[in-house]
């Protein structure tokens, strides 16, 4: 199959970007979307042009490094990571628009690559359980009910790709933040810091310039790990509760 790509090219953070059109021929339907981009880049390299920069690493849907907006939808809207999207999802002759995540808190570094270090700073604000190496009690010291353990797991599967932010009309990172809140709030080990955690993480979320959540749900609709929207309710509940807790300061 042949496809026409319209790709956002931007030389660096301060440069002005623009959409540039490329043709790629003889694309196999079995190729992944990123392999199709590899093919374009081989073409560009051979002709001495600068290849398109894009982030990617594991290419099996778990590291969270890849992610672009495809035809207006984060990861192409198929609830997978971009690396797990395959060309059979497109028609022969398709015109495909490819853009970086669009959010003020994710500045573009080059072409399709953005800076997502804001996510790390939200985790630094409290997305952990303080437990120094060597200080742990036996793993069976605190049983965890299966339902709680499963809910914690469902939230913990977040890969930090940033699709939720890219999809949100408000540029909010609430799904990401709430996933971590819910993961740790469901576990007995997470209780001592629970209310302090939610306050610090939400404060850092706002500090980074992410927008507020208005329950639109675009985030969960594109999430490659199907993090459920109700984790945001969990965050809101914990945040309100923290106002009445002493250990929430």
């Amino acid at each position, binding site marked *: 199959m042949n496809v026409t790509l319209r790709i956002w090219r931007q030389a*660096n953070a301060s440069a002005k970007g623009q959409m540039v059109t490329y043709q790629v021929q003889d694309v*196999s339907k*079995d190729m992944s979307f*990123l*392999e199709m981009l*590899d093919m374009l880049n*081989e073409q560009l*390299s*051979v002709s*001495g*042009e*600068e*290849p398109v*920069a894009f982030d990617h*690493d*594991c*290419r*099996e849907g*778990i*590291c969270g*490094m890849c992610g672009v907006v495809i035809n207006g939808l984060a990861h192409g809207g198929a609830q997978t990571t971009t690396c*797990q999207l*395959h060309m059979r999802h497109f028609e022969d002759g398709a015109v495909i628009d490819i853009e970086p995540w669009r959010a003020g808190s994710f500045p573009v*570094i*080059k072409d399709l*690559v953005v*800076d*997502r*270090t804001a*996510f*790390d700073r939200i*985790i*630094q604000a409290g*997305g*952990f*359980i*303080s*437990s*120094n*190496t*060597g*200080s*742990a*009690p036996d*793993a*069976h010291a*605190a*049983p*965890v009910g*299966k339902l709680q*353990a499963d809910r*914690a*797991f*469902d939230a913990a*599967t977040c890969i*930090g790709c940033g699709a939720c932010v890219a999809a949100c009309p408000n540029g909010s990172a609430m799904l990401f933040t709430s996933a971590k809140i819910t993961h*740790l709030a469901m576990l007995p*080990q997470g209780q001592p810091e629970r209310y302090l955690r939610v306050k610090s993480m939400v404060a850092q979320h706002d500090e980074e310039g992410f927008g507020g959540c208005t329950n639109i749900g675009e985030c969960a609709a594109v999430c490659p790990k*199907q993090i*459920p929207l109700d984790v945001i309710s969990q965050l809101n509940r914990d945040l309100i509760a923290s106002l009445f807790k002493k250990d929430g300061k």
Partner: protein
Amino acid sequence: MSEKSRTKKIVDDTISAALGVIPDEPGAADPSFDAPVSGHDTGLADYYIVGAEIGDTKAKTDLPVEQIWSQRKFDAKLVNPANRRKLTVIIVGTGLAGGAAAASLGEAGYNVLNFCYQDTPRRAHSIAAQGGINAAKNYRNDNDSTYRLFYDTVKGGDYRARETNVYRLAEVSANIIDQCVAQGVPFAREYGGLLDTRSFGGVQVQRTFYARGQTGQQLLIGAYQQLERQVKAGTVKMFPRHEMMELIVSDGRARGIVSRDMVTGAVEPHVADVVVLATGGYGNVFFLSTNAMGCNVTAGWRAHRKGAYFGNPCYTQIHPTCIPVHGESQSKLTLMSESLRNDGRIWVPKRAEDCDKEPTAIAEEDRDYYLERIYPAFGNLVPRDIASRQAKNMCDEGRGVGPLVKELDDQGNVKMVRRGVYLDFADAIKRLGEDKVRASYGNLFDMYAQITGENPYKVPMRIYPAVHYTMGGVWVDYDLMTSIPGLYVAGEANFSDHGANRLGASALMQGLADGYFVLPNTINDYLADATKHGGIKLDDPAVVEAVADVQGRIDKLLAINGTRTVDSFHKELGRIMWEYCGMERTEEGLKLAISKIRALREEFWTNVKVTGVNEDFNQTLERAGRVADFMELGELMCVDALHRRESCGGHFRAESQTEDGEALRHDDQFLYVAAWEFAGTGAKPILHKEPLVYKAIELKQRSYK
């Protein structure tokens, strides 16, 4: 719980892979080589030089094995907490080993500088591990113990690992689970709230802890959270999107690294009192592997060039159940759990002319269930290396299935080959019903369907082996220190714990053992004397020279401006490695491979085309540097494979097999670690042998009869 997660959950609860069982045959003597070779210099003197024997001096091997670690921890010199913040530790890599070490050493109060090439430490490739993590907890009351985990690991490694290291690994395994649970790692649990475990990788006890099929992800996120906590506390400084380009060695000691900022291209030195590399495996030397695209050997290789010995580079693990290559544009391979072999039957058409037919149109009598035919006792459950090798044999015979893929033969002629065999669930569906099969394997079938676009409930899946893990790595002693004082290597990047083959669910265990419990208790022994070594300034000649070397190399790569792309070189190198240093190795093939790699390397340095400039986000330049190092490593892997004229673990030499085609070890000649010293570009490497002494365990030969 959603339907999808419920299915996933049931799968995780039910998957248990009774694979790769290695029965003992206590009476089996160690058969000697048919045609004895005198030393290893027979015909191979052109390839390497034999140097002095080496050994580990840190473990007190006169003690019983279970006392060695305690004694070492007691003997190791300590660093006063007040002095720790004055000492700087560089850690390259943020996976299970690197991330855990950085967090733990930060907590201990050292000043840690932590580097990774990804945009955040949470993306290191440890994240992709699926199955689980072993620990000798004996929560199942099924006769498990530290000794049994130790025993299984040494045996699984085909008696090519150092027993003191492996015992320690088993010893600290239980602490790892405690630590991870305390961090909030959501391991699978039973209804009573206690941890669930399963049997994995052929062992007969249920010691594998897991978090659905995403154990690596959950363990890594646990370590990452502890790391970020230390970043906030100011003990760890993170350098994401920074690649280590060179090791700085001054007065014979590792004193820092040179990094390249992958956004701005800035080449910068960083100095420290000690350097730790936790940079993962080098499977990408094969181009196609289950590794992430960015995985590379540069950090370890640069250290090797500066004096760190490289241990057993030829030991590679090849996994039999991966999704096959679809065509030339394939960029990586995806692994599926080998539990699929429990119920799936593997076959190819009996006749090559049937290979392009629809599989369902091939009559039962025209199918060759070759594993069941060749190994009637084990059938489809033969160990990984045998399953892999036989799949290759079938495809080499022209009986492979799936799309025709272009390959080059020895003479460089193009040939079209089908690289796949069927893994058929039709019988299982008939026997168990589709629902039951879905409950057990649904998530794997979904993954297969997503990647191939085929429905595995209706059409047999196609599988083919792929490179998965490298047991070889930088040589380290019991303290994980290399032959360069002040340089430590942890996790998959070192050679230490898996011998010639790694057991399932042991990679996560080793990474975390090294990072949480080993390094934080050994590195202090070196750091206690660090003040005596004095500081090192950025204008030190060793620093200036290292920076100039890096800059010179980058300038050279950009100046060549040839006609071939970096990827085309990498793919060609991968083809050579896969063909001659893959599942089956021969003297003739390895010699051919070495000459091909040398020629390719020469062409690379005169004809590669690297676009763009250094002072930019330049992914082509990044790849070029990595491929250049893979070319040198690839040659050493072939030399190592050539010198080891025995079959052991993942290393199969066609010249060393039993009448039944099984791997034949030669303990009389090869019971040692091959530690290679770099002797200069283009010079013959020097082989140092570290004899393996087994005191706590008895040597046995494996057998599948």
